[in-house]
């Protein structure tokens, strides 16, 4: 099986604190990999380093065999990595629909063609489909900052799905989303996964993680302390110790 994402010796130091302290793991093509760990263990920082938002202090990230460390975030996005954020990141003053279209417009055409392309019906149709799926279609003309936090979270997810990325990285997708919808989202993720999309998911909700993921990587104090199938992780002493301070 091929690896879609490979992380080798990745480190990120904030002054004295090493938030990511030499992590190695890989996401295999077509798998859903869970990333768990106590608060402050460096999961979000790791995401930031992969997507180019933070510049890693050392180490390497490869996406489909291509080295993406130190590449600009927009290039990484256009290679096919989409992500959501723990604290939702939207364009708060734009409408929901504009947020969705924004997520795709830079992946099409050239810079110059974007000046002259006025017909957006194709993208609009796609956006509306996704909004329908996420149950927020009735909000499509609302300004993003006026919708509820949970709805913003869904919008964030919708934006990721717009451009059909090959790897989707979700930072706590279930936090703040109601259980029914959470289940629907999980189903949709499995459906997307079946069509070949790989996932890297941070989540504190263990039930979701255990049901959804093929494999799990556990971080603690910036280091990988365990890796394996959900069953293995559930029975791993080190993991239990990290979580319950044993």
């Amino acid at each position: 099986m091929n690896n879609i994402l490979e992380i080798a010796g990745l480190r990120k130091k904030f002054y004295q604190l090493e938030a990511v302290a030499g992590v190695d793991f890989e996401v295999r093509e077509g798998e859903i990999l869970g990333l768990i760990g106590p608060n402050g263990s460096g999961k979000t920082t790791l995401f930031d380093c992969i997507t180019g938002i933070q510049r890693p202090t050392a180490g390497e990230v490869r996406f489909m065999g291509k080295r993406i460390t130190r590449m600009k975030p927009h290039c990484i996005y256009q290679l096919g990595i989409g992500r959501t954020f723990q604290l939702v990141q939207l364009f708060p003053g734009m409408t929901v629909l504009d947020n969705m279209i924004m997520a795709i417009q830079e992946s099409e055409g050239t810079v110059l063609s974007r000046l002259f392309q006025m017909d957006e019906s194709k993208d609009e149709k796609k956006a509306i489909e996704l909004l329908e799926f996420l149950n927020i279609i009735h909000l499509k003309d609302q300004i993003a900052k006026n919708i509820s936090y949970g709805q913003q979270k869904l919008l964030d997810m919708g934006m990721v799905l717009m451009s059909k990325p090959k790897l989707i990285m979700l930072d706590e997708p279930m936090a703040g989303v109601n259980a029914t919808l959470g289940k629907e989202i999980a189903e949709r993720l499995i459906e997307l996964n079946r069509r070949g999309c790989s996932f890297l998911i941070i989540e504190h909700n263990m039930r979701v993680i255990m049901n959804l993921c093929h494999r799990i990587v556990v971080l603690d104090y910036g280091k990988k302390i365990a890796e394996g199938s959900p069953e293995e992780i559930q029975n791993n002493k080190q993991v239990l110790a990290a979580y319950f301070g044993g």
Partner: protein
Amino acid sequence: MANLTRKKRPVTRILHWTIFLGVIGCVPVIFGGNAYYMYVATLIGIYIITSMGLNFTLGYTGQISLGHAAFMGLGAYTVALMTLNGYSFWLALPLGVLITFVAGLALGLPSLRVKHHYLALVTLGFGTVIYLLFSNEYEITGGFSGLPGIPRPSFFGLDLSSDIAFYFLVAAFLVLLTGIALWILNSRWGRAFKAIRENDMRAEMVGVSLLTYKLLAFAIGAAYAGIAGGLLAPLMKFVDPTSFPVHESFWFLIMLIIGGSGRFEGPFVGAIVVMLLPQFLRGTQQLYFVIFAAITLILLIFWPGGLTSLLDVFFRRVLRRNPPQFTK
């Protein structure tokens, strides 16, 4: 917030354009007899163009330019030197625009790669150097004596040298450039500009190249200033370095903030207020600088949307056309 990508209803749009064109048409009818008023009106048109350019740079993409006076100067001197040497205005102006656009790219590329405040530094340095060149290269620019006798253009045999005709030329450019600005802002570029302004980190994570768009906005801003300069030279029939010192760029910033930076109407309101107020009051130029600088600070702190946002609030209150919206 500014609503530059919100699709306006056609009726509203037609109404806005009618008012805009109506005002432009009325000015010469009312003030046509007074050469000084016509001069001020034309000057306002030119400053609106400059501020519109600066609005791309500062308002829509949040970059600072302290070189706008220099860009304007480049446009003015290009047109002045070429028309004085017998070339057509219609050749000189595009060349001036090209020069300023390229200068904008050349300044923006290295500094945007670095850090935001370096753009302030580099444009400031550029402004200083251009000013020094205008002042010291006597053989070409005439130094502080300037370049007198710049001809006004004609258009396919139509003589535009009278004050009213020249006013209409500037007005035509203003309308054209307003249209172009609207086009850009309603295109995907406009959406990308807005995305960058609202959340640049997220913008990068949806594939927006910050460098490309900031550079474009900066260069467009420079080109607008270049056109304004190219119109200023034949308006005054004279150019000299004192029209383009560095603190003139500071002045443009103040003009835009007062009008409303990042708002489409901002440059119009700003240029009109800043140019007209001194015509009604008496006092030294420095007193106006004091007043406008104080207004700028107050607006920055309390109403970053400038006078435009205040007018907006005012109209909403008075006309109750758009009551504040909560979820449907």
